[in-house]
């Protein structure tokens, strides 16, 4: 989902919880633009989301009685270039070059470890991401059961045609 023009995120876990976090992220980034007339850095946005994760929500009424059960991959582009952060329900975040989350994440992480290269092109990254997904998915990868989004340097969710084009290259 898009958080701001220059930041997107992917979720794994209780995706209903993720929407609350994403909404909070959207509010924080827009507040930042309102106050400072500049895009919020990806790390600060990630920090804002993790602050919420620790509080289980805002205030007296809206706060939850349990942690948010979701991990996020925050991808964005700011003054430091493109970057990726991984968050978990504990409110900790790590910066990564490549990461997989979810039920198939262990196998996928290993695959990424082997094939990731810092100097990859966008096309190579698309292919790597989808082929890694293919390895851990039970069903066949099609343009209707897979979503791809990129932040290069603005957020863009691929249309089914664009997804199909990547699938063809696998």
């Amino acid at each position, binding site marked *: 989902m898009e958080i701001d023009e220059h930041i997107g995120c992917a979720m794994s876990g209780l995706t209903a919880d993720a929407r609350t976090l994403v909404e909070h992220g959207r509010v924080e980034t827009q507040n930042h633009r*309102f*106050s*400072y*007339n500049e895009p919020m850095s990806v790390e600060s946005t990630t920090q804002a989301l993790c602050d919420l994760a620790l509080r289980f929500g805002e205030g007296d009424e809206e706060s939850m009685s349990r942690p948010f059960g979701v991990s996020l991959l925050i991808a964005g582009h700011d003054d430091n270039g493109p970057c990726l952060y991984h968050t978990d329900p504990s409110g900790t975040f790590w910066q990564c070059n490549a990461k997989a989350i979810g039920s198939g994440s262990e196998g996928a992480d290993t695959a990424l470890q082997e094939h990731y290269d810092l100097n990859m092109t966008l096309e190579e990254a698309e292919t790597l991401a989808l082929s890694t997904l293919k390895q851990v998915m039970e069903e066949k990868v099609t343009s209707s059961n897979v979503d791809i989004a990129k932040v290069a340097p603005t957020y863009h969710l691929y249309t089914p045609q664009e997804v199909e084009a990547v699938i063809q290259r696998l």
Partner: protein
Amino acid sequence: MSMMFAPRLTEAAAPTTHAAPTWSPYDNNGGTCVAIAGEDYCVIAADTRMSTGFSILTRNYSKIHQITDKSVLASSGFQADIRALQKNLDARHQIYQHQHSKQMSCPAMAQLLSNTLYYKRFFPYYAFNVLGGLDSEGRGCVYTYDAVGSYERSGYSSQGTGMQLIMPVLDNQLKSASPLVLPLRQSTTPLSEVEAVDLVKDTFASAAERDIYTGDGVEIVIVNRDGIRHELMDLKRD
């Protein structure tokens, strides 16, 4: 004792009239501020006289405040409000630095100042501000404000009691083309840093002649890639 009840009736009958207010929460301490943006520098200047009514409070008060490494605020108006505003911005900048591990850029500070002023829309800071500095690309920028936060980036500006005397002179010297000309021209002046400082000195000397609230001295701050430097020039003390 029975008279105590009578006034209440007459108050309801007659409309209440307010006497002319004897106390105002504001005072104008006078003075003038100027800023000029160049290709890779910014000059911010203000006189050093602080007055009240027809009296001088001090001949040596700085209206200029450095907020970040690259942003300098000059304000004329009610100095108590201005001091509070400066402290507010400093605190906000500290918090920003803690949260984002970097200093605020000048355009970001410009937006923050606008929001801070508008926050007190119904009991404004009596401050007429000019914010100067370098933007993220190292180009000079000048932002000029009204008391409630309306702001604009421009190549030069002046505010304060001497504004009406100085602005036309700056327009004459620095205005390159109509702002309606497309493509949008850069909002910096073609003058060199030394020429800009000289122009500022000349404008203050002229303003001090006719504006009674401007004089004693002018403090000039120059921001460029090497850092920030200060100059002081004497003005007429009458």
